[in-house]
């Protein structure tokens, strides 16, 4: 088969909604397809919450702004938050189109991704819902543990990233990967501080996404979720006080850096911008 160049005009430009108009606008429409997006943040920053909301947004029928698509959720940190998924979903969202699998080692992940290849190509040709989203929550849990050989780990990271990117491209998937953060110890040394090229902080500590510079080369877009430092730093919406959180765009090829405040409520994750845009709770 001859290798033919493509016309960029015809590349897909569709985006996957995050389920909140403010966050969607912040990200230029949502999560791009054919692309690996990383959500990094400390524990309880809201990574999994946001993932679940995006899964539901993909599954929602087209009539309500969704894609009516199926998703794969690879969970490496059990248990899978099923109750939270149920509480986020309205009755209409078909939960049987969300496939959940766990993986506990990098080898298991590789095997799983190879099976996913087969699944994706089968589903592509059937009349069933197409799979349009793959979530890996979290990548760090698998690769931070086997740190015996740094060189080996970095090549494993690139292999996983290459596989995810290939699937994203071949099947026009949106791929979301979550990552932990590590504390940055400022030893006062000069020279480039590896990985921490933007001063990120969460809960008042200086942090940077885990897995180093090698992994940063593997993702197309990096989003950083953080909690505010002081307990008193809360936002007041509809008479409820909530902890203020921040979604920061660290890098993306199509968007400038920036940040957007958000809160997590019972109904989901909502950006805080123009207050009038926040949907009020159904009750």
């Amino acid at each position, binding site marked *: 088969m001859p*290798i033919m*160049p*493509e*016309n*960029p*005009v015809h*590349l897909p*430009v569709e985006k996957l909604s995050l389920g909140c108009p403010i966050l969607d606008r912040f990200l*230029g429409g949502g999560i*791009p397809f*054919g*692309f*690996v997006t990383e959500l990094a943040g400390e524990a309880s920053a809201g990574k999994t919450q946001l993932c679940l909301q995006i899964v539901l947004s993909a599954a929602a029928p087209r009539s309500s702004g969704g894609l009516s698509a199926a998703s794969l959720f690879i969970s490496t940190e059990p248990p899978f938050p099923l109750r939270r998924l149920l509480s986020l979903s309205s009755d209409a969202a078909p939960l049987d189109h969300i496939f959940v699998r766990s993986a506990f080692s990098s080898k298991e992940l590789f095997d799983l991704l190879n099976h996913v290849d087969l699944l994706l190509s089968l589903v592509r040709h059937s009349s069933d819902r197409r799979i349009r989203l793959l979530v890996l929550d979290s990548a760090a849990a698998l690769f931070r543990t086997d740190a015996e050989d740094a060189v*080996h780990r*970095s*090549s*494993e990271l*690139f*292999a996983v990233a*290459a596989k995810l*990117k*290939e699937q*994203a*491209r*071949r099947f026009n998937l949106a791929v979301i990967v979550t990552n932990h953060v590590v504390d940055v110890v400022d030893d006062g*040394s*000069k*020279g*480039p*501080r*590896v990985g*921490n*090229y*933007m001063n990120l902080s969460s809960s008042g500590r200086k942090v940077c996404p885990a897995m*180093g*510079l*090698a992994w*940063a*080369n593997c*993702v*197309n877009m*990096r989003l950083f979720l953080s909690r505010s430092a002081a307990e008193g730093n809360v936002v007041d919406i509809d008479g409820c006080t909530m902890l203020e959180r921040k979604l920061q765009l*660290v*890098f993306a*090829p*199509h968007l400038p*850096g920036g940040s957007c405040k958000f809160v997590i409520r019972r109904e989901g994750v909502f950006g805080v911008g123009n207050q009038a845009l926040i949907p009020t709770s159904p009750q």
Partner: protein
Amino acid sequence: MEKLFCSDTGPSGGKSERVMSPVLVLTGTSAALNELIDEKRDACGMRKLGCEEEKPRIVDAEPKENQYSELIIPHREAVEIIKVTLKCSRAVGLEGKHAVLKGSRTAWEMLSDEQNLKLIRTGSEDFDGILGGGIHCGQVTEMGGVPGIGKTQLGIQLAVNVQIPVSYGGLGAKAIYIDTEGSFMPERAYQIAEACIMDTWENLGFSRKEIEDCQERMQPDHFLANILYFRICSYTEQIAVINYLDKFLEEHKDVKIVIIDSISFHFRQDFKEMVQRTIVLNEMSRQLMKLAERFAVAVLLLNHVTAKHTEGSFQLTLALELVCFPSPKDTKLYGEAAI
């Protein structure tokens, strides 16, 4: 029969003084360059070979002044002439071996070629300053930087800038974008193309008529369509595309820049044989340098950086440092984030 090109300068000194300078075995050069060469030659005390004694053999019935005519003589005689020439050349202190070696050029020719080579401007004066005016056609440029520093932005910018029409000071050419990471975003390319069109029109005064003439070409969609986009998902595909470029560039002479974003992504996975990886990468770099020279295209390689622990501190260094582009003309730049 050998075809030998020589120049007829018309009336000049006696034939005993005549020397056929191999430097003049040049065809298709501009008149200005010829004048320059004539000047240089005269300064060296060299003269061009007159063709008076071979006149009967000249195919062109009336050799005009200052024009090249074609001399058709048997191979044996051509060799004889060259031998004599070499002797004469040495007499004036110039080795003329290159004329015998097919395809070789003098440094003088190379210098003038290099001066004729086009530059692709980045759009930033400071950046152009570092690069010696812009990205050079015919050369391989490698740029490395941390994620988010703007490597892809620069790649897209150059893919757009190469298309600025000649009448606006650009090259009016096409670009090949080889995307190994999936970071090429059409929406971003569209924005850059829009801004480039605005800049071009702002910087250079234009008349209404010119706008109408260029209306069709100066559209973001048209700029996007002139980026020939290859998406690569594995290192075997990457090798295949680079092998294919030779044929592709032969068919698409209007391509003036090849951008590979990034060269290293697929080669940082576990290779069973590291030696084999080095061989593959060296072969790839050799091929790219050959392509750059043969088709006078600029080759821009974007690369990752990795942290190396040296002398007690971390330093950034280009990934896969094994592959080096040893030629001194190939530029390496490191992007470093302002911390």
